[in-house]
């Protein structure tokens, strides 16, 4: 297939307003088309994929999407629902009826005892459109209040790098650090392991991925770093 003309090389860093392609290309993520020309909307790495041009943003905030698993913090206990900060432009809503799996009874049910201000909760976005707040649900197994572990917040666009191709990165991290790692699509990651050192290591690795997400050879470098840190720790005869 003949290569349509482009203005940048793949994975070059582009800035808002940079002209990426013209005419026959389709405007993908983080780009917009005007007068037949496609421009970048955010700072990121430009990618050309067949006829589509898009930008993998290096910095962007989370925009809710139905089906996403997110980790958020309760900021308010309302009447019949909690308001949850999921690091998006809009605060999310979790209905008491969802947590109870039956209608909410104001006289009987004490909401703060289920989830109180400051609690972390892992939930799934079940509804969202621009006119209403994103709606959460904790019905599925593994969802609900976070009882233990550490939280790492990174730029949401780098989540795919933390997961890795077919989960390769996150699987490696889990094995090497002996931690449960739950990745929220909103850029919040929960790390929970048996030893604090293991958790620290996982956090360190995740931060490294956040910093270097736009580079190549990342998986190898992270694996190397984790292993050499572990060796250092195990020398001091602490268990990970």
């Amino acid at each position: 297939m003949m290569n349509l003309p482009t203005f940048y090389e793949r994975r070059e860093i582009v800035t808002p307003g940079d002209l990426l392609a013209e005419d026959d290309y389709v405007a993908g993520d983080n780009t917009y088309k005007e007068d037949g020309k496609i421009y970048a909307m955010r700072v990121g790495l430009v990618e050309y994929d067949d006829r589509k041009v898009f930008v993998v943003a290096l910095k962007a905030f989370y925009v809710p999407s139905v089906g996403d698993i997110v980790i958020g913090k309760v900021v308010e206990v309302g009447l019949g629902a909690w308001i949850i900060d999921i690091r998006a432009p809009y605060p999310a809503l979790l209905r008491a009826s969802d947590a109870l799996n039956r209608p909410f009874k104001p006289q009987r049910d004490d909401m703060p005892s289920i989830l109180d201000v400051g609690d972390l909760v892992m939930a799934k976005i079940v509804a969202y459109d621009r006119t209403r707040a994103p709606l959460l649900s904790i019905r599925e197994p593994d969802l609900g209040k976070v009882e233990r572990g550490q939280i790492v917040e990174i730029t949401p666009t780098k989540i795919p790098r933390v997961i890795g191709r077919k989960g390769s990165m996150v699987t490696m991290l889990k094995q090497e650090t002996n931690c449960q790692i739950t990745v929220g699509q909103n850029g919040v990651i929960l790390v929970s392991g048996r030893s604090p050192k293991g958790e620290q290591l996982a956090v360190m690795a995740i931060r490294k991925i956040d910093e270097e997400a736009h580079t190549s050879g990342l998986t190898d470098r992270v694996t190397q770093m984790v292993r050499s840190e572990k060796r250092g720790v195990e020398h001091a005869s602490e268990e990970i």
Partner: protein
Amino acid sequence: MSQKKPEKSIDENDVRLDGRGLNDLRPIKIEVGVLGNADGSAYIEQGKNKILAAVYGPKEAHPKHLAIPDRALLRCRYHMAPFSVEERKSPAPSRREVELSKVIREALEPAVFVEYYPRTSIDLFIEVLQADGGTRGAAITAASLALADAGIPMRGLVAACAAGKVEGRLVLDLNDIEDKGGEADVPLAWMPNLNAITLLQMDGSLTIDEFEQVVNMAVEGCKKIHGLQKETLKAKYVAVKEEVEE
């Protein structure tokens, strides 16, 4: 105590007091991501100007009655620190700061995709820490980067500077002495994507021909500044890339 005005701002060889040629910008240094709490931030030094810009948002608009149903509300506060100028300036917003907050906001809004985030607000704060003429231009240049640094989708960047007339000659990027003693000052903001002017003001006296020349000078100055803006945004990532991809 006011500064004593020097005899001449520009000599017979068209060299300005600070050594610049008529068409030279002051030295500019910009950095993004300088503040920990803000969603986006940038710091600029242009000559003796030192200005910080920070963005919070998009987030829920408060108070709620200000929220716009089909787009984000862009709010801007241009403020000068009391110690930013020779004679201490009261911290209360002056009429000049109110006007500048408005025109700066109007200069940047065309660049932001506000329609993507209805009912939210995007708050832009500009603090002038040290002022030496042309602060609104430098503020817009920095604010543009702060918005991009916050990950807010933009049509493009906005660059700004001023040109004018001093001692009979048309000059670019007037500093405070040149502005106060000169015949005209024209601040201008430019969006390269749209090939358009988003801020334009003037005070002084110019013929229509001079005005045309001054506007063109300012636009050319903005194009140079735009190049610097792009470099600044990429800088952080390019440095990391070079460091790790040996």
